[in-house]
């Protein structure tokens, strides 16, 4: 196995890489960190700061150009010719936000802003919720993690170590719950009574009583770590009365029994997962180059869809997956990709909304809505 020549080449390459100068401007930004207390990452682009300042100064609804085309004629035709990008809205702010959707609207956080954007499917209008500045020290939503969950009357936004409760209609902040002293929250699921929040660095899932807004149980996730100490329960799914937890740093899935608030099931998976959803009575787990369909009763993989996918969502009875600039629709009856929709930018978030799926993509974030032909 030992290959001393390859070993030397890797070592030389690593040294060359480590000796390269820092990119222009980075050194100055790093040296400025102590002066910017409390230290948070500064926006990478000057124009982002300018756009944010303008946005806050106006204090108003300005979220961007609604392109709102009724068919995505500019991109390649989808494979199945049945699902299309029927709404496309560009918003201001940085990329890689969190997305939630319900009842024909989608809510999006964008990195470097302190606002929550709402896009209404019927009108294509984009509105800004009141600033969340008091809960977002520094320059706004962080790089690391945030999550958005929309329930009947509430928007839940998890960021860093807080869970914010916002009024669904006005976006007004109702309360902020400190849920973790250590790490950010990566995922939220729940309903009108109970929320489940996964916190990465803690390696735990929190059960939150919606009525009181309190954490009623902290459940350590004893999944098999790819790296011990780096347990990262980053995705949650609900199926068969259980809460299923998959993490970036693990090669197993853990099942929490809500009756006991304990992990009662664990099964191994072939690779470190990127996301997990429940559909058609099974779990769907995205990993590198594949989506595995897993029977939670046995832990066995019952089907594998060989696609490169990251985020998953369910909508219209199908599983949806991001795949680069494309969104894939996977038919749960045949386990096959039936549609491939190009959204013309790297997809960073998916959210199901009834029969539609919302897609966040691009470095200048664009929110798309994909629906079926009528």
């Amino acid at each position, binding site marked *: 196995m030992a290959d001393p020549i390859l070993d030397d080449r890797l070592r030389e390459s690593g040294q060359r890489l480590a000796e390269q100068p820092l990119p222009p401007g980075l050194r100055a930004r790093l040296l400025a960190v102590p002066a910017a207390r409390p230290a948070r990452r500064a926006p990478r682009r000057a124009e982002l700061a300018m756009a944010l300042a303008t946005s806050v100064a106006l204090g108003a609804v300005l979220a961007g150009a609604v392109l709102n085309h009724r068919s995505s004629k500019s991109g390649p035709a989808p494979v199945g010719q049945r699902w299309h990008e029927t709404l496309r809205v560009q918003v201001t702010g940085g990329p890689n936000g969190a997305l939630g959707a319900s009842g024909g609207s989608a809510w999006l956080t964008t990195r470097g802003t302190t606002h929550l954007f709402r896009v209404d499917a019927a009108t294509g209008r984009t509105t800004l919720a009141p600033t969340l500045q008091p809960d977002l020290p520094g320059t706004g939503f962080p790089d690391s993690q945030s999550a958005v969950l929309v329930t009947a009357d509430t928007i839940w936004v998890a960021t860093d170590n807080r869970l914010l409760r916002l009024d669904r209609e006005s976006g007004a902040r109702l309360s902020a719950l400190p849920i973790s002293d250590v790490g950010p929250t990566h995922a939220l699921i729940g309903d009108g009574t109970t929320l489940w929040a996964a916190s990465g660095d803690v390696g735990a899932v929190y059960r939150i009583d919606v009525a009181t807004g309190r954490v009623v149980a902290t459940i350590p996730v004893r999944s098999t770590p790819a790296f011990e100490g780096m347990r990262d329960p980053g995705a949650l799914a609900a199926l068969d009365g259980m809460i299923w937890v998959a993490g970036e740093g693990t090669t197993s899935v853990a099942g929490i029994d809500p009756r006991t608030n304990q992990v009662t099931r664990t099964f191994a998976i072939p690779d470190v997962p990127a996301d997990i959803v429940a559909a058609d009575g099974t779990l769907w787990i995205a990993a590198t180059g594949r989506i595995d369909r897993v029977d939670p009763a046995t832990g066995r993989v019952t089907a594998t869809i060989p696609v490169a996918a*990251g985020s998953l969502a369910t909508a219209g009875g199908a599983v949806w997956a991001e795949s680069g600039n494309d969104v894939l629709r996977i038919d749960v009856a045949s386990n096959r990709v039936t549609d491939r929709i190009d959204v013309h930018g*790297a997809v960073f978030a998916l959210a199901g909304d009834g029969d539609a799926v919302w897609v966040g993509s691009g470095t200048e974030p664009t929110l798309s809505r994909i629906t079926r032909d009528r």
Partner: protein
Amino acid sequence: MAGVAPDERVVCVDALTAAPAMGATAEVEFAAAVEAEGRRLYALALSILGDPHEAEDAVQDTFAQAWRDWAALNDPARRRAWLATICVRTTLRLRRRLRARWHHAPVPEEHPDPRQRNGDDLDLVRACRLLSPQQRSVVALHYVYGFSLDECAQVMGCRAGTVRPHLHRALLKLREAYGDG
């Protein structure tokens, strides 16, 4: 002012307006750490993330986190490993937001075919694109930092026995792509 060292004066004044227990001494130490470790941390983040812009963000986040906890690290000798630990955690966390790019990282046109064999200039960042996030982390720590498996494990908070299989599998993949065989 007799008998008062310049550094002590600055610390006292700074402590009135700045973070508690953080003063010019800490800032000087911090600046020294940026100079000493910045490039290597950027190389580490770039190897793991594969994206120069995101690697910049990761390094900036790393130093921002480090500054917040600067006073907690009493042993400067451990600072290098400490920063590497923060950086690895930051990049792996950032990775979740970049899943699409991880799975579909475009291959820059200026780079040669990754399957070039026996070439002199192996590109570690490009090579890491063939690997899983865990494998990238181990490879970057081992070959960019020169850490032993024990040291890699320490940075990652795990046992060497956990790291070893990742490095083994990574080298098998890289040997297939870059080896002479």
